[in-house]
């Protein structure tokens, strides 16, 4: 069964590892939402955090086409890196897939997409969260609930 790249950030919801959800915390004292693991609230330091599942769609706050990759990058080059803002608040950086470079636009709606990525070691494949474009009709409902 495939494993999440980081179970504290991405929970897989089927055995095939094709579906999942980003995880975070909601602070019951100051209402801040944090992506990924947390013990104390980044904003107010409260420990009254409740785990939550983050929205599956957001907007492309910014993007870049990385032509010289960092060491350890297992994918093709160039690749698109997206900075996505979720309606819950946090921004999440990940690769944008299924999108020709010329279609990229700031503030375009995108949604979560999972991909199995081979690591440097054989057998070390992980499911990694990525973003892909959604059509505007579908996005309206998801981005502005």
């Amino acid at each position, binding site marked *: 069964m495939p494993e999440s*790249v*980081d179970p504290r*950030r991405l929970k897989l919801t089927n055995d095939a590892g094709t579906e999942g959800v980003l995880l*975070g915390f909601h602070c019951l004292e100051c209402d*801040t*939402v*944090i*992506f*990924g693991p947390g013990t104390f609230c*980044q*904003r107010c330091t409260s420990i009254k955090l409740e785990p939550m599942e983050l929205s599956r769609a957001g907007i492309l*706050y*910014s*993007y*870049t*086409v*990385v*032509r*010289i*990759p*960092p*060491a*350890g*990058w*297992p*994918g093709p080059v160039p*690749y698109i*890196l997206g*900075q996505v*803002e979720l309606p819950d*608040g*946090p*921004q999440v*950086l*990940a*690769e944008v897939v299924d999108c020709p470079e010329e279609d990229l636009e*700031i503030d375009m709606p995108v949604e979560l997409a999972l991909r199995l*990525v081979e*690591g440097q070691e054989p057998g070390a494949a*992980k499911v*990694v*969260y990525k973003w892909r474009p959604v059509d505007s009709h579908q996005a309206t409902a998801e981005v502005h609930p």
Partner: protein
Amino acid sequence: MTQFRPGRQVMVAGVGLHPFGRFPEKDMATLAVEAVVPALSDAGVQWQDIQVAYFGRVYYNGMSMGETVLGRLGLTGIPIINVENACSSGSTAFWQAYWGITTGMFDIALAFGAEKVPRGPVTVTAEDSPERLIGADHMMAGYALRSRRYMSETGAPETALAQVVVKARQNASLNPYSHRKETITIEDVLQSRLISDPLTLFQCCPTSEGAAAAVLVAGDALSKYGIDQNRAIRIAAAVLTSGGYNGKGSDHSAFSPYRTEPAALEAYKVSGLKPEDIDLVQVHDAATIGELQQLEALHLVPFGEAWKATEEGRTSLTGDIPTNTDGGLLAMGHPFGATGIRMIHETVLQLRHEAGPRQVKDARVGLAECSGAGDVTTVHILVK
């Protein structure tokens, strides 16, 4: 945020620099020694006078590098502290030296930094981090994300970003210690190869080798060490911050382009100076966008307008906000541990009016701002 309460007056008595570039024939300790010795000589003090030393560096596989370096000058037994604070390691070492003196613990201190940065894209996380599979840990990609959003929000054209490095190269061409001495045009910048669009190679600072050093002395101890009062430069503010909550739930550099602002406001408060009092500024221009957003965060220009100030020539040596007068990270180069003290070196030369062909006219107040991963920011204000 921490409230900083200075005590005794602290002066920079001497500075030294090893040129920035690539020096395969020298090890890091040699680079460092060749910055420390000129700094001691510039201050007119002996190595045996130094009571404490702080050493900034990032890339080193061993331990206690500071002790290894300074052992070459003689084993005097003083406390030596090794400092790693990402790209702000050098400026953090300087900050610690300041606080060691202003609080009364020491009369005289050495802050120095050296680095041999490996080639290739810079990452923050360890090699086994999940970030490597996600592809988000890439320093210049973070700056590229900031660039595109900034251009979208402010209307800045890519030629305005390119002008930042054209100006940096002009300043560096007047500096024999710089890594990149050739002047270039906006077209050269835009036609250099793409690293992470819209950033091209020339818009990203080179990874460099080099070293820098500064000798700090209590104002009331200058005469005890026979230091020339006329060449000593007063430290009016020394502020270090880490990241505050930025509303986006992460400390990745892409998320907090204006993290310098709280440190800048504290530095202005501590020094009693205002942005309009600053005669010249060194900022963390690891990429072109960095210089623009730092100038805005320092309140030297309104938010979203640094690109216009750059196009109008206001940030050049003859403008009203001379910025990165020695070439900055973009052209001087960026050996992480040395960079923050290199900024102090340039500021001190300018305030002493010893900067030669790149001298800023009537310079009296200089500000140096250095940023690092973890949203580390240092802001130092120096006054003649």
